């Protein structure tokens, strides 16, 4: 029996998962918007972040929500170096190469994690993980609410960086007109790396928000990649607002699909949307970024 309260809860939960999707997609779309590459290693990097948050908690006893403040700068650095030292030099600006290099990185990272941590699925138990709130007729878990708030804050910070800092202005200049930016004396390789770093930092925050309620295994990030891709495609490649709205929408769709169809079929729902969006809106996709 479908009570409106259960449905409302499903929608609300979907919104909150969607917020995390949005954050993952934000990183992806940021990188796409500036570097014009699809980062196939995004999911693997999210998994790395999840493991990092896990270790921070289990080994050093750092609460995931605090770990975010530590891991975000750390992952910014990681992303910066990856782009500066590996992806950029290896790809030499050829789209086909970038595709393969980020795929190679994804495979490398994911399987290195599998090798080190094995396939076991791990979770952590936080005392407050199961505290719930009542919002109207719905019941929501505290971590999900926290996630929604944190995503809002992160997005604001990102927006402020893009809008008010000189680096942000440089990023926007490069995104719009790479050659012009270069002529104006902007170090494009540096800006590319900064952007990649920011995108990766988004993943660190997302991982910390996920950890209290989600699980960690070497494929954990993957569940999010295709969803994030879907969102990015849905929202228009390179569009930050699109990523946010798309993330929320997909969260709700998935929650409802899972609710009506069960877990793995819910995933098929996402893939089907993804394929349909790719097939039906390719021109919108191409038009957006250029």
């Amino acid at each position: 029996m479908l009570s409106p309260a259960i449905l409302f809860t499903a929608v609300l939960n979907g919104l909150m998962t969607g917020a995390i999707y949005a954050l993952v997609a934000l990183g992806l779309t940021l990188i796409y918007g500036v570097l014009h590459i699809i980062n196939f290693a995004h999911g693997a990097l999210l998994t790395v972040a999840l493991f990092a948050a896990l270790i921070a908690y289990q080994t050093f006893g750092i609460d995931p929500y605090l770990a975010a403040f530590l891991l975000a700068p750390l992952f910014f650095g990681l992303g910066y170096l990856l782009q500066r030292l590996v992806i950029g030099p290896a790809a030499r600006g050829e789209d086909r190469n970038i595709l393969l290099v980020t795929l190679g990185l994804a495979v490398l990272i994911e399987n290195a994690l599998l090798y080190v941590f094995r396939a076991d699925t791990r979770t952590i138990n936080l005392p407050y993980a199961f505290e719930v709130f009542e919002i109207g007729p719905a019941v929501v878990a505290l971590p999900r609410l926290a996630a929604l708030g944190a995503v809002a804050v992160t997005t604001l910070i990102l927006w402020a960086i893009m809008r008010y800092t000189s680096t942000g202005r440089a990023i926007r200049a490069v995104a719009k007109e790479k050659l012009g930016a270069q002529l104006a004396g902007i170090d494009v390789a540096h800006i590319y790396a900064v952007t990649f770093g920011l995108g990766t930092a988004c993943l660190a925050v997302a991982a910390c928000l996920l950890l209290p309620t989600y699980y960690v295994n070497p494929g954990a990030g993957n569940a999010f990649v295709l969803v994030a891709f879907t969102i990015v495609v849905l929202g228009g490649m390179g569009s930050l607002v699109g990523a946010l709205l798309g993330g929320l929408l997909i969260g709700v769709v998935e929650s409802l699909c899972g609710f009506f169809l069960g877990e793995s079929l819910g995933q098929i729902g996402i893939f089907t949307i993804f394929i349909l969006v790719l097939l039906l809106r390719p021109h919108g996709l191409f038009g957006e970024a250029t």
Partner: protein
Amino acid sequence: MKGVGTILVVAALLAAVPLFGVSNVTLNFLVTALIIALAGQGWNVLGGYGGQYSFGHAAFFGTGAYVSAILQLRYGVNAWIAFAAGIGAGALAGAIIGGLSFRSGLRGSYFALVTLAFAEVLRILASVTPITGAGVGLLVKLDLRPEAFQFQSRVPFYWIILALVTVSLLIVRAIENSRFGAYLVAVRENEEAAKALGVNVIAVKLGAMVISAAIVAAAGGFYVQYFLFIDAGIAYGPWISIEALLAPIIGGVGTVFGPLLGALVVKVLGEAAKLVTGDAPGLDLMIYGGVLVLVIALAPRGIAGVVADLRARIVRRKPEAKPEQPTAGHHV
């Protein structure tokens, strides 16, 4: 025809290997390497010659494998006929996925993404539907008779996969030497220019996709006969999508022998890794990922490219004046 002789000589040399009494372990190694060489050759037709990089060729490997296994198990179809039907089904899957993608104008990263997504959808479907054995997989009944495409010894298997690889080499060589091949390469280099020269770009890509998918499906069908087992993770998992593209990229993308060469290297690397640290999960793929990055960074034309450069250096033909940068970049 030029090049055919080389292919036949290589095939004859490889065919002679079992006559020297190699161990079962070695034969097993060679068979698995040749399966990858076959799948890699399939990928090479579309990716190497056509420039369309698929990240989801598992879709065709799995379709070939499952259709063959299901026809045998559930419908009692003869294994050889089931194998052929699997190839046909793979080609059909290629036509459907290719038709949808190319008609929508997907290329470059978008084509890679959509193929990946198709493969994943098939994997999830195969892991939940009863006809594919859902999460358990399918075991082909043991029936060690040649009529059932099963053999006591590994040697006949080796010869069959070698024959399949040889056919794929000949197909690719024939493509290279045909109008279709010229059009395919033209599409890879510059779609707009190809259109202006009367090339039906979508039809050419689609043709390449169908041939590509059929070859990969043959690899899948053979896999089932050899291992007598298939499940969703093997059939539609990312491993085969990755090995199928890794082999030609390591060996030399868009060359006849690249996939064969690359597959041997890939498998040697995998085995070497196991020797060093024992059979740990993830190790081989981890190395493949690293190798992929390294090859792109250091030798983007693969072994074939390195060999060609070395040969050019040895012959000491004075290199011509440095070519200017092309104004039209590669379309991706």
